[in-house]
């Protein structure tokens, strides 16, 4: 396997940063290669809502000058990245994928935006997303839904849809997504990339448009685990603008990039994630079973665990999400409902029909779920499962309500706030990516990253690129 990808746009952040640091590659050259890649592919993929071509090139020239004078800032310096279009960008339109906010221009960067810029990243543009981070691809909004680079007749998953397609197709080296029920890990899984939702409070939500205050998470989406570690390093940590952020020290995540997981105990809640539920695709399960075998071969101890409350996680996650979303969007829903896409308008309205007792019961359910996970994590270091119940669905015949009928494999970690990553673990016979989810204890991002990195180095799915 090649150490350096011959295509600049498919280099990892680690690979490119090494060349940038040694001044063997210019940030301008790298940014131009990324722009060329976007120009060659985005009329098919629709990953970008807004491309910041001139600003990106100007920032790349600045980064080039900084590096040439010896002021190298680290792994993200000169690296092209992009943002889901709900991350505030000062002076740059931020739409949340909705007509409601189509003219909204924030005056201040989100904390995460500012931190990536401060680390020297080159912002390429704003990425497509499901409207207000909910629902599915909706052709009733002003924005064309992103398409899956592995098969453009299929969806990317969401809601961080453009983040998934852009990273997978080499239209940027990393992106930020946001996640309330699986919106980072879902598109990561369906687009064959890495997506990490860190512990609630690890990454600031300040300046990121709200879906559900108590379940929203921000996090990186990249092609490799080490790149996710580098992006997390830049955005993690206490932020006075977000009182829910933790004061816990931020560790050096690069120290977790080692290939040894001998002695790590991995719990597998088979009763929920590997059941014979008809809404779960058997090919997904068999692919992840092979991933579990690899982890075992790497020295992990697999044990079966039971978490009974998983059966009502989705209900609690959804009621809390839609209730909080309704509270956030109520005024616009009542005064300008026509400006919402049909899919999100319907769901937000349902949030307005839940009663206070529904919301409070859901919060009480969450307490039980958290306790059961805490109990299981006394026996195991990590939990592993499929990320999604299905591979990417086709646009044709897409049924958004189908997601309401089956289980969610990602929602448990939004409800509990525990860290979870999705990493590529193979393909279906039809060539669609399958993701494996690894979750850990509160603030054990290092443990999650360590296992994900060990698996990636063995399996090497990240070296495959989509046919576009």
């Amino acid at each position, binding site marked *: 396997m090649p150490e350096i990808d011959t295509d600049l746009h498919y280099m990892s952040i680690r690979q490119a940063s090494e060349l940038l640091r040694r001044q063997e590659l210019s940030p301008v050259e790298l940014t131009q290669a990324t722009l060329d890649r976007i120009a060659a592919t985005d009329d098919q993929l629709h990953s970008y809502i807004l491309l910041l071509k001139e600003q990106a090139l100007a920032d790349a020239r600045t980064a080039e000058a900084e590096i040439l004078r010896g002021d190298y800032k680290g792994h993200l310096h000169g690296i092209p990245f992009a943002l889901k279009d709900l991350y505030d960008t000062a002076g740059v339109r931020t739409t949340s994928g909705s007509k409601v906010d189509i003219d909204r221009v924030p005056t201040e960067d989100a904390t995460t935006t500012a931190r990536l810029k401060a680390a020297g990243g080159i912002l390429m543009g704003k990425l497509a997303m499901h409207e207000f981070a909910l629902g599915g691809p909706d052709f009733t909004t002003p924005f064309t839904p992103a398409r899956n680079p592995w098969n453009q007749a299929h969806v990317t998953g969401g809601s961080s849809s453009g983040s998934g397609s852009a990273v997978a197709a080499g239209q940027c080296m990393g992106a930020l997504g946001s996640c309330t029920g699986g919106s980072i890990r879902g598109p990561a899984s369906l687009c064959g990339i890495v997506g990490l939702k860190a512990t609630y409070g690890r990454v600031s939500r300040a300046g990121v448009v709200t879906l559900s205050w108590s379940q929203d998470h921000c996090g990186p989406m990249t092609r490799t685990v080490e790149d996710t570690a580098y992006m997390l390093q830049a955005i993690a940590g*206490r932020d*006075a603008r977000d*009182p829910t952020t933790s*004061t816990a020290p931020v560790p050096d995540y690069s120290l977790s990039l080692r290939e040894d997981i001998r002695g790590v105990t991995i719990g597998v809640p088979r009763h929920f994630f590997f059941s014979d539920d008809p809404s779960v695709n058997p090919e997904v399960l068999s692919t992840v079973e092979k991933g579990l075998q690899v982890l075992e071969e790497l020295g992990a101890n697999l044990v079966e665990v039971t978490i009974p*409350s998983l059966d*009502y996680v*989705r*209900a*609690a996650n*959804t*009621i809390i999400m*839609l209730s909080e979303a309704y509270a956030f969007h109520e005024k616009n*829903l*009542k005064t300008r*409902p026509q400006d919402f896409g049909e899919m999100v308008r*319907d*769901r937000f*309205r*349902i949030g*307005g*029909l*839940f*009663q206070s*007792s*529904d919301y*409070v*019961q*859901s*919060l*009480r*359910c969450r*307490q*039980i779920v958290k306790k059961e996970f805490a109990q299981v994590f006394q026996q195991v270091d990590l939990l592993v499962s499929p990320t999604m119940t299905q591979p990417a669905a086709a646009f044709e015949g897409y049924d958004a*309500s189908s997601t*309401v*009928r089956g289980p969610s494999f990602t929602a448990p970690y939004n409800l509990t706030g525990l860290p979870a990553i999705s990493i590529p673990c193979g393909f279906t016979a039809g060539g669609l990516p399958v993701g494996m989810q690894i979750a850990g204890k509160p603030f054990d991002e290092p443990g999650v990253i360590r296992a994900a990195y060990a698996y990636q180095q063995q399996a090497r799915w990240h070296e495959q690129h989509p046919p576009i």
Partner: protein
Amino acid sequence: MASTSEGQVSMDKFKTMIEIAGLGMTDQEIEHLKPLYDLYARYVTTVHSVELGAEEVAAVFHPEWPPA
């Protein structure tokens, strides 16, 4: 939420709920929303069926907030 054992409500009840919520929807919109609402209503039934015992909503008071 007033619901049947299946979690679904009658159309009349649904219209009343929408009126109370002040959503200002047309009859056509209400007809359109009802089947989707019936899907989500199962979640309401689920959370109310869980044996929650004395489980509290554990709000945590942070006397140091707002942070310095």
